[in-house]
């Protein structure tokens, strides 16, 4: 283990099973994974492999049936709904495939939303939201509603929203899935930039081309990790060995 690298998130023996029509379905069968602070990790796998479930657990939207999940040294498996909401608010920035912006709010208000729930004053919220939107190059589109923005712009608003809360990790679920190739590439370029700026990014995709961008790649098949390639640092070259982590 790289001791000099501060551990971002850590999953240990995560199992997730639920009842579906009277039958127990197990989607994750013992996943263990480290994501280091500052790492750009892609989780790849075909649909039905359990990567969405994994992302929900990493994003604290769902809790594992067994195993432990630690974020910033805090174990989340025994936390109340309210504490999980706080973790989502402070430590996780979501970027969804279908953007998930609130249609009746302007871009600025959408970006402010996590800060509203954090209880920041409106001046602070505005300041941070404007900064995040400016960083995404949307300073001229702040008062537009999602409907008035293109797909790429909407996804940039969503990224700004994820960034505004200054989270521990950015969690992106197929961020290019709803975009055309060109815009998709632009969005991926943004992820590169964010990675260079030191953000921890976990990206979930089924597209190998997208995964290529990431520093590290893990593959999930039928609820288990089947392949792991880890890079060391954002600015160093990728090391396709994955020796420092336990793989199956």
């Amino acid at each position, binding site marked *: 283990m790289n001791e000099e690298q501060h551990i971002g998130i850590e999953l240990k023996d995560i199992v997730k099973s639920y009842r579906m029509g009277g039958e127990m379905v197990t989607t994750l069968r013992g996943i263990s994974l480290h994501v280091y602070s500052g790492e750009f990790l892609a989780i790849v796998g075909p649909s039905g492999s359990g990567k969405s479930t994994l992302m929900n657990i990493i994003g604290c939207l769902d809790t594992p049936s067994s195993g432990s999940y630690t974020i910033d040294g805090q174990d989340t498996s025994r936390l109340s709904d309210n504490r999980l909401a706080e973790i989502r608010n402070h430590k996780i920035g979501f970027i969804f495939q279908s953007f*998930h912006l609130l249609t009746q709010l302007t871009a600025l208000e959408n970006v402010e939303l996590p800060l509203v729930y954090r209880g920041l004053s409106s001046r602070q919220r505005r300041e941070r939201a404007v900064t995040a939107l400016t960083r995404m190059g949307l300073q001229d589109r702040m008062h537009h509603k999602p409907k008035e923005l293109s797909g790429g712009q909407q996804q940039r608003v969503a990224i700004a929203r994820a960034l505004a809360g200054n989270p521990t990790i950015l969690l992106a679920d197929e961020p290019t899935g709803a975009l055309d190739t060109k815009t998709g590439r632009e969005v991926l370029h943004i992820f590169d930039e964010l990675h260079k700026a030191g953000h921890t990014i976990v990206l979930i995709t089924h597209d190998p081309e997208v995964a290529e961008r990431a520093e590290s790649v893990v593959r999930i098949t039928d609820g288990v990790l089947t392949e792991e390639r880890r890079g060391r640092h954002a600015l160093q070259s990728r090391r396709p060995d994955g020796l420092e982590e336990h793989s199956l």
Partner: protein
Amino acid sequence: MHFSQGVRMAWKSILSNKMRTLLTMLGIVIGVSSVITLVAMGRGSSAQVKEQMSSLGTNLLSVTITGRGAVTTLSVDEAEAFGTIDGVIGVSPVVSGNVSAKYATTNQNVAVEGVTASYETVREYAMQSGRFISSIDVEYLQKVAVLGSTTATDLFGTDDPVGQSVSLNGIRYKVVGLLAEKGSSLGGSNDEKILIPISAAQRLLQSKGVRSVYIQAESEEQLDLVQAYVENDLAKKFRETTTNGSSSSYRVFNQADLVDTVASVSSTLAVTLSGIACISLLVGGIGVMNIMLVSVTERTREIGIRKSVGAKRRDIMLQFLLEALVISGWSGAFGVGISYAIGPIVESATGTPILMSWDIILLSFAFSFSIGIIFGIFPASKASRLKPVDALRYD
């Protein structure tokens, strides 16, 4: 999340669906305004009736003699004897009948009441002009008359009757006074009659007996006691056992009882009407709940998004509850405004006075607000309980 931020958010979301909000509000607006208006109408008419009744004197007993066997009336002295009962401050015996009254070429059948000087104070009449019948008039059988305002107009038209003469059954009476208008009450008009001294009336009507006596008590509280004494006296006179309090030879009316009865009838009416209005308010509340439930389902994804960026259960709950409260609060305010606007219209259309009172306005506003809370809590808690994963996946 701050409260004011929550209100602003609720307001925004309400505005984003104007038509639906308007229809939801309509139920409560109609409910609140009809409760306020109906209660105001009820109170107004109840106050009006009370005022009319009490202008007749709430401390008044009226005794009507129907008689039994050979004795069908009281003598004037017997009637005046009621004045010795404790608490009685005035007695006014009345001899009444109908005569033909004539002035110039106008001929009319009029009710004549033979009265004493105390009639004016006991029945609370005011003079419009001239004077009332005095004790000397009674003592010396003066042929003087005081006219009720309607009778005066009927006979004299626009002329001033005071100082003129009117002929009653062919006997000339000098008009010395004109009564102020009193309006009609239960028991007929108070303005269509001619008053003459009781002694003159006995001769004119050829009847010595007094058939009705008005007794004025010192206060409303003493009325029941005085009534008991009077009934006791009458029972002795007519040698009748009044086992169940009623008698065939005489009847004693208590004005205060009458006022209470009429007032209770009108307040029962008011309560019934506002009860119906409250039901409409309740139905309006169910409308709010219905819309909020639809809105929860419709906005499942929104709830999921809000939860994913860190909204707690409390935040979602507060958001939906505030929306319900803002809707019902504004509806309540509109309802109050509308009831103020239609109050004068109702008043002029129905003739019923409107008596707006702050307590009922506050009450119905509070009621509509609590309807917002009660019917908002269920949808709000339903929304807050949604799991973020399921909510996000919802389409």
